[in-house]
């Protein structure tokens, strides 16, 4: 709040005071009872009488608005500014104050309505996914028992359905505000081995060799989430492998502030210009478009889930045909304590 702007708003008042003063002085002059000293004294008194209340008002308002602006600047959630400042002691301020609090409340109610709707939808999706697992399990058993020519084909389709259901489940989880994971201290090697065992058939059938002897240390995360993330990375490595000797190398590095898990493959790699977008939802890149079943969801979800677990996921590639390396950073120390 600028003093000159404050005066400009009161221009009419100031002008009228000046006009009154001039008229009074002229009046005194006309009636002859005039001494310059008396006129000056009168002028000063009049000026003090008129300007004093203005200055007082300026100070009061200036203090209030300065607080308001400062609070607004510092706040992350700007809508809460009304809750932060004290109530003012002048009329326009009170109106503004009430309005701020009123709109904030309306805004929060609105947000809560959406949040509730979103939560309801999410819990419905989770319920649905758990429901759909029963018929999938039942169909798998039926196929196993009755066999027939279509057995292998149907099983493949069922596995694909299962994969999509799991993706939907983790997508729902990745958007939730709730913490439905359990952070524990885990041996990094155990988690990787668990994922490798789970993907054994995929890797063996596609003749991908795995090097996983250099995984050390323990990290803090949720097993199920981590295994899902590793599944995505492994499935990418298999999907975008080169013909010939395919290889995935797991290794970990222990740094002062973090443990990093690297998954390096010798596959098709990623073009440098596509690299910044690999985590975008639905982005498949040139290779994805020519490859089978690229949904552009795997890395997007992995990144998001990592974020929720307090980890970071990075993808690097030497360019087309030069393999891809994924790195998951598990922070140590104070950050880990935060997540716990």
């Amino acid at each position: 709040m600028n003093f000159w702007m404050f005066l400009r708003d009161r221009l009419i008042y100031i002008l009228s005071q000046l006009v009154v003063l001039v008229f009074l002085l002229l009046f005194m002059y006309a009636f002859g009872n005039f001494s310059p000293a008396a006129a000056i004294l009168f002028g000063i008194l009049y000026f003090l009488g008129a300007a004093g209340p203005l200055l007082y008002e300026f100070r009061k308002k200036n203090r209030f608005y300065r607080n308001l602006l400062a609070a607004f600047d510092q706040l992350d959630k700007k809508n809460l500014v009304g809750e932060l400042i004290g109530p003012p002691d002048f009329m326009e301020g009170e109106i503004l104050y009430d309005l701020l609090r009123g709109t904030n409340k309306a805004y929060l109610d609105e947000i809560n309505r959406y949040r509730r709707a979103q939560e309801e939808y999410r819990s419905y999706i989770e319920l649905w996914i758990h429901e759909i697992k029963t018929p999938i399990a039942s169909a798998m058993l039926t196929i196993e028992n009755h066999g027939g020519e279509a057995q292998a084909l149907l099983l493949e389709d069922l596995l694909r359905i299962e994969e999509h259901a799991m993706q939907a489940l983790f997508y729902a989880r990745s958007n939730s505000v709730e913490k439905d994971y359990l952070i524990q201290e885990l041996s990094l090697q155990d988690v990787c081995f668990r994922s490798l065992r789970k993907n054994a058939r995929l890797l063996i059938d596609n003749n991908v060799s795995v090097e996983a002897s250099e995984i050390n240390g323990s990290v803090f995360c949720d097993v199920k989430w981590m295994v899902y993330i590793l599944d995505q990375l492994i499935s990418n490595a298999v999907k975008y492998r080169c013909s010939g000797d395919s290889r995935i190398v797991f290794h970990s590095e222990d740094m002062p502030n973090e443990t990093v898990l690297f998954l390096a493959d010798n596959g098709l790699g990623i073009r440098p210009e596509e690299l910044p977008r690999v985590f975008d939802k639905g982005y498949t890149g040139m290779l994805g478009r020519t490859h089978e079943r690229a949904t552009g969801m795997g890395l997007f979800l992995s990144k998001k889930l990592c974020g929720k677990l307090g980890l970071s996921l990075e993808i690097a590639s030497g360019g087309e045909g030069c393999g891809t390396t994924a790195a998951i950073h598990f922070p140590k120390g104070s950050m880990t304590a935060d997540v716990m």
Partner: protein
Amino acid sequence: MTDDYRLLIVEDDPRIRMELSVFLESNGFTCTVPQRFDRLVEETDFSLFHLVLLDINLPGVDGFFLCRKIRAVTDVPVIVVTSRDTELDELMAMNLGADDFITKPYHPQILLARITSVLKRAYREKTADRDRVHCGSFDILLSRSTILFKGTETELTKNELRILCALQEHISEIVPRDELMTQLWNSDLFVDDNTLTVNVNRLRSKLAEIGLSDVIETRRGMGYLLSDNFAIDSSGRDNTGKDIAEKVKVDIDRRHR
């Protein structure tokens, strides 16, 4: 291999109940499938069963509660089956005394493997020597990573030991290469095709050095076979009769698939 084991299947979905018992019975188990669960613990004689397969999402009864009640009356192994798959559910099931935890949709073969391993843990290994695996005319000593043949021990590498154990589990059956690999992967040995060949050859020559030649046969295009009929005397007695029996068995197996 799975003879005489009686399972109690607690599952509310009638289709799964039926298919599961068909599947498990075709694998040599005897199954009992109760239709009602509200008085399950009171009305079941658990001494009749070797294992309980318990779905925890049952109508009307909380499966976790049921699990605790079963545990209160008996030590029978319990495998909890669920479609909820958070870490918390797993912890809870384990805390309530379940022996294993498997999530739907399970692949039937994986379920079978879990059941077999829980049963093995609970019954077989109580009596048998955990460390010494008997294998035809020689023994595998697991903790020392050696084989014992005619009083002498020969050291094996970790890979060789695991390959030999994997073959031993299906002694005198052909183990297809990819199945052998899957089994090795399941014990955290992530070998690829070439490594497997190299390791098997090394194992084979090690065995041959101590007089156990032709223990591991390669069946081209099919897999490996650990025969239990070798070296009854080390003079290399003709065992064609056994070979023919083997071939018949293989043919039957293949038709069965």
